[in-house]
């Protein structure tokens, strides 16, 4: 528990440091894209670290609720529901992208839009084969 708190403190502090570094670069007229990225990463890390620290404190003060949450997270039916939901969403998204490609082609959209959508479908198929094989070897 202490290690987790320490780790999240480090994450939050790193976030603050990256954010301050972003300010420093902004005041020195460095690339705006870079400063924006640093602001996003810094605030993201700070937010995640802080949220995790609060969650750990909350769990310590409310052990019953923490136990309930742990059961909910590890519950095998909930896990199956999560997998099924994710899988269904991916399948639906795949069809949506196919429809978007058809619409983009029909309205004469720029070729890079059509190709980038096609790229997503190809990447999806490649990832499917790779991940399926990894699971096939390990499960």
């Amino acid at each position, binding site marked *: 528990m202490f290690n987790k708190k320490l780790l999240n403190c480090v994450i939050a502090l790193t976030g603050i440091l990256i954010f301050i570094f972003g300010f420093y670069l902004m005041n020195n007229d460095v690339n705006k894209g870079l400063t924006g990225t640093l602001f996003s990463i810094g605030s993201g890390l700070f937010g995640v670290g802080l949220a995790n620290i609060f969650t750990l404190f909350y769990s310590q003060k409310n052990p019953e609720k923490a136990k309930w949450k742990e*059961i909910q997270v590890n*519950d*095998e039916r*909930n896990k199956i529901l999560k997998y099924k939901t994710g899988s269904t969403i991916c399948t639906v998204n795949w069809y949506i992208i196919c429809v978007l490609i058809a619409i983009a082609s029909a309205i004469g959209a720029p070729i890079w839009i059509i190709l980038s959508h096609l790229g997503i479908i190809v990447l999806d198929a490649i990832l499917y084969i790779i991940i399926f094989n990894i699971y096939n070897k390990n499960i």
Partner: protein
Amino acid sequence: MKNKLEMLRKQLGITQEELANKIEVSRQTISSIETGRYDPSITLAFKIANFFNKKIEEIFIYER
């Protein structure tokens, strides 16, 4: 797959919530198993059988 979970639980006089807490699953999982909407994994089936001090096949009935 049919099961006798509800009957066994009622014989012990415990609620779904209490049984769920004992075997560390959600109440919804117990409810789904009792109504036959969800077939538990072999691990959970063993946990349930151990809790009632019975064999798996005495609780879960396989139907072809």
